[in-house]
């Protein structure tokens, strides 16, 4: 019977494929040298495989869960803030229309305008901070909900032509909520680390 020569490369590949199996392929049985080489490499590969399989020391799954939760919360907050910005923008359009209808500026109108500008500025700061800071999830959700309610009240106030004083009160509330939110962010960012 003719024995086919098998290359060392092929012997090594067979040894790798047959790790942890009680197999000696026909092709390596052709010669004692091939067989010996095959068995040596097979044993070597089994040892390498066994000794390199290690479990991590830390709880990586917990870190993955936490990181995902933070990322999801930030995405949700960004969506809420963009939604609020959209409402604020539509409010400004309504304000602008009504402004043009006024024949003279009043003190109340100036105060309303000042609050609108401050509100816009604080929102920009808040949005910018939220991409960097991890804060209490419940706190952010509450504040976002409060802003949503105020904006809905403002829309109604403009559309129903409510008094300037009422509208000013609502804008002042909005500014107050944004200021509180920023203050809380600063306090909580010192407490939380990931």
């Amino acid at each position, binding site marked *: 019977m003719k024995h086919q020569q098998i290359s060392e490369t092929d012997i090594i590949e067979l040894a790798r494929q047959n790790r942890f199996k009680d197999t000696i392929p026909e092709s390596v049985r052709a010669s004692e040298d091939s067989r010996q080489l095959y068995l040596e490499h097979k044993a070597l590969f089994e040892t390498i495989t066994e000794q390199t399989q*290690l479990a991590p020391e830390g709880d990586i799954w917990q870190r993955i869960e936490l990181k995902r939760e933070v990322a999801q919360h930030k995405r949700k907050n960004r969506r809420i803030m963009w939604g609020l910005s959209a409402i604020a923008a539509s409010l400004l359009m309504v304000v602008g229309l009504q402004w043009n209808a006024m024949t003279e500026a009043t003190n109340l109108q100036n105060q309303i305008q000042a609050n609108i500008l401050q509100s816009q500025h604080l929102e920009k700061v808040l949005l910018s901070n939220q991409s960097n800071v991890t804060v209490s999830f419940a706190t952010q959700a509450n504040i976002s909900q409060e802003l949503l309610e105020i904006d809905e009240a403002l829309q109604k106030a403009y559309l129903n032509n409510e008094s300037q004083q009422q509208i000013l009160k609502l804008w002042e509330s909005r500014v107050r909520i944004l200021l509180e939110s920023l203050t809380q962010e600063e306090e909580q960012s010192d407490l939380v680390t990931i």
Partner: protein
Amino acid sequence: MISFDDLIMAKARKGDSNAWKHIYQSCEKPMYSLALRMVGDKALAEDMVQDAFIKVMDKIGQYRSDSSFWWWVRTILVNHCISFLRKNNRWVHQEEAEIESRIQELGEQPEIMHEKQLIKVLERLPEQAQRVVYLYVVEGMTHKEIAELFGKTQSFSKTLLSRSLSQLRSWINTTH
């Protein structure tokens, strides 16, 4: 071979946390072991696994069920490790001759004979050689796949593997 039934995968695609936890627990050890061979540091390997698995979760929509899930996860992990090493100037581009020379020197170090475990001798090999050995022996990657990963020729992979295995076998024959 890591694989999951259709139900687990369907739940994972819908964002089921328990399904993902089950998948992660099956992948953790092989992912960590591979990452450790790639980056050579335990804490860093944990970071690599964390970041890579998050990518797996985010990109699950891109996974095709007719291909090996482990192959897909491994690709993400290895690419993430190499990207990290490159950004931090740790993906060392050594010439083949230089690596071979360092492997050769290993056999001439007397303290090698005092190593009790094969893994300790493996860890004395040049980093690229360790990676080639692990990717070939444990991950079952072909020389073609390894060469593409390293941006080298198949000859590079075969030569590094051959020299490294020769040293490891020499250690075994001398000490056992």
